[in-house]
């Protein structure tokens, strides 16, 4: 069946709450399908983003009252670049064993991963080249 024409970058802004994770996945699933990622690749990207978004929700030491997580997804040639930004300050070290596990999983499936911490917030950037199975 013919996929919808790719529609350009995706921006998702959602409250920094656990109930935002499902809607984020749904929007990203549709976008990844439109951009031509196969199911296995899309699943890896969704897993990396899911871990990053879960960190953004759980981690901030001083979450703002109306904290938002912003997810930006775009294609760069045949690669996907997705950034997940929160506006809280993270623990430097994962505060619970399972968050450490989440970090390991993210690193295992993301392709290239960058974590940029500033006083204003943390941005996780995932870069995945189509056709590459990373783990």
């Amino acid at each position, binding site marked *: 069946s013919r996929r919808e024409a790719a529609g350009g970058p995706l921006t998702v802004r959602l409250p920094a*709450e*656990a*109930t935002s*994770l*499902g809607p984020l*996945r749904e929007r990203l699933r549709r976008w990844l399908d439109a951009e031509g990622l196969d199911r296995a690749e899309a*699943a*890896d990207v*969704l*897993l990396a983003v*899911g*871990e990053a978004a*879960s960190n953004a*929700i*759980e981690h901030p030491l001083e979450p703002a009252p109306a904290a938002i997580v912003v997810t930006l997804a775009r294609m760069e040639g045949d690669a996907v670049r997705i950034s997940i930004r929160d506006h809280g300050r993270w623990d430097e070290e994962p505060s619970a064993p*399972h*968050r450490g*596990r*989440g970090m*390991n*999983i993210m690193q*295992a*499936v993301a392709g290239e991963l960058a974590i940029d911490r500033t006083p204003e917030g943390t941005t996780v950037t995932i870069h995945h080249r189509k056709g590459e199975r990373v*783990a």
Partner: protein
Amino acid sequence: MSHELQFDTDRLPEALIARPLGDIDMAVTPGIQADVLGAVARHSAGCLVVDLGSASYIDSSGIELLFRLHGALAADGVELIVVAPDGSNAARLLGLVAMNDIGEVRRSLAEALHRCGS
């Protein structure tokens, strides 16, 4: 605030089977944990099989759930067997990172039930 994830249960002589249906993430894992432990208690099950073959998404929160279930059940002498079929999201996840303390993992329900019965 969490929302509920549906799961099927099957009570067999050798095991209680719990099969989450849908996405497993940190929004739903507290509810699943409570519901599954409640079902184990109601059915007086000696062995719990968590069949992850219908999990359309699962991440480290799901592993944390298995870890907590394993600990809670071990305290009551109940065994936990996890089913992660080949090609499933669960199998992909469990293959990525080494972990222990989540109980035995099998690739099929039949293998899991055989383990429970032994």
